């Protein structure tokens, strides 16, 4: 939290955001079985869900979803779904060391940075948390049971290969930047990396504020200041496609369920398509914990739906204004850099041919 002022500093350096850590954050999760809503822990038994004036479970407040638990379970952990307390402490220690950008020598490479590449942000910029989720799960993905994204469809594989190649060349300092449209949506400040939908922990700004009024829930994302307005009155969905899709919500017991379709492009989850059907569930587990579970069903890209659970912790801090586009000097820098590199190559070629 000490780095929250970064948000207000805006993106003085949006730079190649694609290079930022994959979903890393904090939280005391309960450990729900698979894709089911929260089960109260023994400690929470005396706690009852607060209600709004109109009788809905009160989910309001600022929620922080930092964690260093990865979206996908590291392959080497195999079938291990939970850490023991000791393993968790070891993992946190190692992961905090491994993630620390200040300890990575660009010449040597490290983490997912290849040797001789670019480590675009130093540690100062990160606010990814330093703890794994309270459930001690080894991944945020709870289904498939191996904690990993399901197999790609042929189209999904094709897109994944293209992304990997692009990421590699960006990491090596040669971003594809004929135009701004070649850059990822988050670098253009059109959508936030972690803001969703669905929300997934990222490098910084892992905060939302929930508002509830009769008939509505609003999710205000700190990342790229997006207010997702969700009507609860069962109104029909129109034909308009939007960056954040079109969401409708309803209550199932004490769980808020949000159903989103009509995406304009991919969601914030890498590899998803416009055909994504997203179901999100919010359940208060105790006074300080909001469980966020989402299921991505995208038959264009994945061979089966998948589900992740992210615990969010109550925060007393305000949401900061993250004026991303307004401070996006990096986009001009990336494009100008690419043009300069082309010019240099052209001149080198001319010289060589003389």
């Amino acid at each position, binding site marked *: 939290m000490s780095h929250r002022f970064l948000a207000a500093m805006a993106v003085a350096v949006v730079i190649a955001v694609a290079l930022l850590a994959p979903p890393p954050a904090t939280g005391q999760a309960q450990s729900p079985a698979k894709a089911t809503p929260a089960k109260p822990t023994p400690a929470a038994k005396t706690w009852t869900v607060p209600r709004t004036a109109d009788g809905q479970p009160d989910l309001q407040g600022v929620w922080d979803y930092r964690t260093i638990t990865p979206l996908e379970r590291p392959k080497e952990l195999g079938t291990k779904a939970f850490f023991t307390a000791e393993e968790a402490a070891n993992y946190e220690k190692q992961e905090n060391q491994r993630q620390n950008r200040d300890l990575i020598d660009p010449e040597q490479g490290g983490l997912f940075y290849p040797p001789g590449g670019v480590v675009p942000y130093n540690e100062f910029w990160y606010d990814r948390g330093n703890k794994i989720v309270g459930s001690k799960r080894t991944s945020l993905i709870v289904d498939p049971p191996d904690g990993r994204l399901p197999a790609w469809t042929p189209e999904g594989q094709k897109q994944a290969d293209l992304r990997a190649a692009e990421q590699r060349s960006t990491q090596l300092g040669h971003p594809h930047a004929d*135009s701004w449209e070649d850059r990822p949506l988050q670098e253009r400040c059109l959508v936030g990396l972690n803001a969703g939908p669905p929300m997934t922990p990222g490098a910084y700004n892992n905060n939302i504020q929930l508002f509830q009024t009769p008939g509505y829930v609003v999710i205000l994302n700190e990342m790229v200041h997006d*207010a997702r307005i969700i009507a609860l009155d069962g109104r029909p969905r129109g034909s308009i496609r939007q960056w954040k899709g079109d969401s409708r919500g309803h209550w199932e017991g004490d769980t808020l369920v949000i159903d989103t379709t009509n995406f304009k492009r991919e969601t914030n989850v890498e590899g998803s398509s416009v055909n994504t059907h997203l179901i999100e569930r919010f359940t208060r587990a105790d006074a300080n914990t909001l469980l966020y579970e989402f299921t991505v069903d995208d038959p264009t890209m994945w061979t089966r739906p998948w589900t992740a659970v992210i615990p969010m912790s109550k925060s007393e801090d305000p949401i900061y204004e993250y004026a991303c586009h307004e401070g996006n000097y990096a986009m001009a820098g990336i494009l100008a850099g690419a043009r300069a590199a082309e010019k240099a190559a052209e001149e080198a070629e001319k010289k060589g041919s003389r």
Partner: protein
Amino acid sequence: MQNRLRSAIFAGAKAALIVALWVGAVPTIGQAQTYKAPRTADGKPDLNGIWEALNTANWDIQDHAARMGPVVALGAAFSVPAGLGVVEGNDIPYLPAAAAKKKENAEHWLTADPEIKCYLPGVPRATYMPYPFQIFQTPQYILMAYEFAAASRTIYMNSSQKSPNDTWMGWSVGHWEGDTLVVDVTSFNDQTWFDRAGNFHSDALHVVERYTRISPDALDYEVTIEDPKVFSRPWKMRMPLYRRLEKNAQLLEYKCVEFAEELMYGPLRKQSSEGKGGSK
């Protein structure tokens, strides 16, 4: 005779009463308010809903005649509509240097107006841009979400919390004065404007907004602007805001970054002899 006179007087009085009732049913801002707004669960006037200004203040907050727009090809479709100003007395008390700056802004509108680049519009401009906004009113926080640029701001009710930094949308603290929501907005940067006519402010801007329901479907919106670096005295704007009555009215996305990128980054696009840039 006496009876006929009396009945004529009575009829006249009745007509006057009817006129009075009819006028009363269509309140205009500025007259005494007797309308009693529905309440939220905590007993406050209910401001929830989707609202929009219906004026040309975003073109120019002062009186302005119609004039030709900046894009020849768009002719009558995108020229500037005339409008009565929303500034009280139509006078903005600029300090001399600021008046010169305003004039310069107006002359360089197309390159200098932050709206054109899809920057967060600030307050009060966000309120009267030609896009709807939605109020979400809770006892502790009131969220105002604007369609333009996905801008929003949170109003902290009865809070003593200070802004952590200067911002585009300001730091809003609210309280109720009778049936009026009063919002005190500070901690602005100096980057936003009031309109497309170059009216501007500094980072010393202090805005006080007053939102009052005057009918089932209208709010009275009054704003006091104070900025000692730019103006010689505080001044006011005032306008009604109207409820969007469409069935299933919904705030849609206007993520305008993508509409400003060509303007902002176009010269940095790869120029190819085959005419094959990176984007379509």
